[in-house]
């Protein structure tokens, strides 16, 4: 494995092509479950696990899957690992399993995973593909943790369940409901675009 290529893959997943903030993919779990850091982190980790192994296996099988039926084939592989993740969470992290609810099985149709299978794993060797899955998964996790930290602090006044402020603090209920998710995500995206434009502007 070449070091420079590996570094590029990592950098792409975490920053330049961050699935949430740069590619704006996987919005459904991003908006729905980022009400607490624990949920955001758990979701990110489950998706990372699925991404690594689905990328790895799809890459290994890439020369055997006929291109006409590749999407069903990918979905079967992805669904296998999602089922494993779901059973694992149900067995060992039941409260997380409860609060993530339907969004765990929905990882199957998470467009980040299908997109990486199609755009990366089907064209690259297994090791690079697994690394890409790791980088993208960590990028997704990082983004979820950032969003959910903002929403948990403002919407419930806690971080990872610990109360941050005194008893007089009145949390802004809207931030932990759906509109708060949209507004938080929109503001972060706007801020990142603004930063990127400023950087680009200085170069010229």
């Amino acid at each position: 494995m070449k070091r420079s290529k590996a570094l590029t893959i990592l950098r792409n997943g975490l920053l330049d092509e961050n699935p949430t903030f740069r590619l704006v993919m996987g919005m459904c779990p991003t908006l729905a479950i980022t009400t607490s850091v624990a949920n955001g982190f758990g979701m990110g980790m489950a998706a990372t696990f699925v991404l690594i192994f689905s990328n790895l296996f799809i890459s290994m099988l890439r020369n055997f899957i006929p291109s006409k039926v590749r999407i069903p084939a990918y979905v079967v592989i992805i669904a296998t690992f999602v089922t494993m993740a779901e059973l694992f969470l149900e067995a060992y992290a039941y409260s997380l399993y409860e609060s993530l609810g339907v969004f765990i099985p929905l990882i199957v149709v998470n467009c980040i995973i299908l997109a990486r299978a199609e755009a990366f794993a089907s064209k690259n060797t297994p090791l690079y593909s697994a690394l890409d899955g790791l980088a993208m998964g960590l990028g997704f996790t990082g983004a979820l943790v950032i969003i959910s930290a903002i929403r948990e602090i403002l919407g419930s006044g806690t971080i990872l369940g610990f109360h941050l402020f005194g008893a007089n603090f009145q949390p802004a209920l809207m931030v932990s409901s759906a509109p708060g998710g949209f507004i938080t995500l929109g503001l972060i995206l706007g801020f990142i675009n603004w930063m990127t434009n400023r950087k680009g502007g200085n170069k010229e």
Partner: protein
Amino acid sequence: MYVSPSPHIRAGTSIRRIMLDVVLALLPACAVGVVMFGWNALLLLCISVLTAVVTEAVITRLLRKPASVGDLSAVVTGLLLGMNLPATAPWWVAVVGSAFAIAIVKMAFGGIGCNFLNPALAGRAVLLACWPAIMTAWKDPFAAVDAVASATPLAAMKAGEIPDLLNLFLGKTGGCIGEVSAAALLLGAAYLLLRGVINLRIPLSYILTVFVFTLAVSRFNLTYAVAQLLSGGLILGAFYMANDYTTSPITPLGQIVMGIGCGLLTVIIRQWGGYPEGVSYSILLMNLAGPLIERATRPLVLGEKMKNPFKKKEAGKNA
């Protein structure tokens, strides 16, 4: 405001002059609010205006845009938001609401003339969604202590009582700081009409719709219908917020459609909704419908034939 096709004659009006007129028109209602509810009302109004102005100044500075604080539109937004708060609210509620109204609703979409929602109302809606208990803690007029007191007239009417009409008209009633006195609000509206700042299309069609619809719903109970007109934020919303230049249609017919739509939604929310008051949500909803209304009521260019504005152009043609 009706924008006719060119050529135009330049008048001496400016945004600043118009906004100054609006502030002057709002002052009597603010004064009544402060007299009724005490010093905390004045404090909330001042903090709200100050936050709006500071937020706009900071944002224009950060984004290196031309400073727009001088046009006084931020003052109007801050003042309207303050008038939409209950007098018992803590000071930071005014700060959050005002900053949200200016930073997110107005400046994030491009500043004055570009926002698609009325900033003050959107700020109020956010506050209501964030802190419902604080935003509905009403105070009796002239109450010495900050006790949470009786219901607003609208809530009382939902329970089946009809409050005294004269008290409603003058403002001796519970409610938001700036909405209680119909008399003071109408005085300001008359000034704005004389100055030519507003026209009657939206306010009148709005209020008439509410009146007629309420009359029909209440089986022609005239006292009840008049009480519904005078209570809640209807007068404030109809004369000062529904006809906001930026967020209401510019076509005359469209303005009437906007007024009627606001009226229908207000009565529906008031009569059958979970909230006692529906003025702010109905105006916000009609703000969203604004572009559609404008498209449907666009005047014809000389010689143009009437056609369905919502029909898609046939593929291939005019491409």
